[in-house]
């Protein structure tokens, strides 16, 4: 029989359709081809991008926009939102609007065109996360922005338009609805139990040991109880922290280890699976929030979103997370 499951943070229901149950090999993933040709993100082509806002190089004396970078952050050449200007908030009757002000940046994760994030040395992966943190800290100073959304699309089906490994960042003048819902769900739980719901999720998952994918001393990867898609994973710090910007360099390395391992396990289950990887963190300048816990969500693109999902907000998932976690745990043993 199918099962309805409720996400404890958002209150969102999902359907685990056990009759449609699938094994990793049953999922169809379109073959990815490296297109080749000129790539504006490759080292040596820095003139094709706007000037960098951040870059890490072995030689700190090297000039800006020199091709010796390891990780490079540049403003989007054709941004969805623009950085200059005032918000110009206004009301039109019951409708609100404002100017499309924001920062839209691309984090180029490696100088090499065909490098994959999880195949890079962990020290390099930690630099990518350091770039996330350092950009968050910098953008927090701009009072026009309320939230910074950091995400990675991997694979064409997940929205990646270029195969060169990169993430994106969009600083927004408003809080995204998903974050508002998450903050509100977590706050409701906190008011009732006086505990962070994510800390409780981690405690329960460690105790039950059925949905853990992998862990180290500081981070844990779980298949959440009510996942939207097969092999959805959440990566959370074991110690309570609501903002990613407070993470120190030692923890960045530990996080890099676990993210690499989680993505490697996912790739071993379903090679080249497209996915979206999103950082959920506290709003800018909110200060530490006792009820909220930063985390990454990795959502593989394996199911389609059609009328039912759009209309109801329900997702239909053909693979229970307990089994997904087991596949992921065993994936590197085979």
């Amino acid at each position: 029989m199918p099962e309805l499951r409720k996400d404890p943070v958002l209150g969102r229901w999902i359907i685990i359709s056990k009759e449609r149950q699938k094994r990793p090999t049953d999922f169809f993933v379109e073959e990815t081809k490296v297109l080749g040709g000129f790539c504006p993100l490759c080292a040596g082509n820095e003139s094709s991008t706007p000037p960098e806002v951040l870059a890490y190089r072995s030689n700190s004396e090297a000039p800006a926009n020199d091709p010796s970078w390891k990780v490079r952050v540049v403003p989007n050449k054709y941004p969805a939102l623009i950085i200059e200007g005032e918000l110009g908030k206004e009301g039109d009757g019951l409708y609100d609007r404002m100017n499309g002000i924001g920062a839209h940046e691309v984090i180029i994760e490696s100088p090499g065109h065909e490098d994959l994030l999880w195949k890079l040395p962990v020290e390099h992966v930690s630099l990518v996360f350091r770039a996330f943190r350092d950009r968050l800290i910098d953008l927090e100073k701009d009072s026009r922005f309320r939230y910074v959304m950091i995400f990675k699309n991997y694979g064409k089906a997940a929205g990646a338009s270029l195969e060169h490994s990169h993430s994106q960042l969009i600083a927004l003048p408003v809080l995204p609805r998903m974050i508002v819902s998450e903050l509100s769900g977590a706050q409701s739980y906190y008011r009732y139990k006086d505990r962070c719901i994510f800390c409780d999720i981690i405690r329960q998952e460690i105790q039950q040991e059925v949905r853990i994918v992998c862990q180290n001393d500081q981070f844990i990867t779980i298949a959440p109880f009510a996942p939207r898609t097969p092999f959805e994973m959440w990566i959370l710090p074991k110690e309570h922290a609501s903002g990613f910007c407070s993470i120190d360099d030692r923890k960045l390395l530990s996080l890099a280890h676990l993210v690499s391992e989680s993505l490697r396990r996912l790739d071993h289950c379903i090679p080249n699976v497209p996915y979206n990887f999103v950082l959920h963190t506290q709003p800018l300048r909110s200060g530490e929030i006792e009820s909220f816990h930063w985390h990454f969500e990795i959502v593989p693109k394996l199911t389609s979103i059609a009328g039912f999902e759009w209309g109801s907000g329900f997702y239909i998932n053909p693979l229970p997370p307990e089994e997904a976690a087991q596949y992921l745990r065993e994936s590197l043993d085979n």
Partner: protein
Amino acid sequence: MKKILLVDDDHGIQLLYQEEFTDEGYAVESAFNGDEALQMFTAESPDLVILDIQMPGLNGIEVLRQMKMINSAIPIILNSAYHEYKQDLGAWASDDYVVKSSDLTELKNAVRRFLD
């Protein structure tokens, strides 16, 4: 005389741009699809390319990648009826992106910026 390679599968656009850019003092060569454009790009060595995106066969972003591989010094202006392709990071290889309009002022200014 500076030479523009105009790549667009729409004959109406080809006629309009031919007339307008010839009047501006440029020589205009036409290609109607990506393969033809790549051949002409290599053979003709234009001074600038105006490149549509949505075309049958190779799309403009794919053509752009190939052209920049052949010669990255030749400026290429993407010229599409759609804003949406700006979200394609492949478009970054272009030197400018001008959305199609019946008013050619912006496109002409972009061309002048590279050629004059």
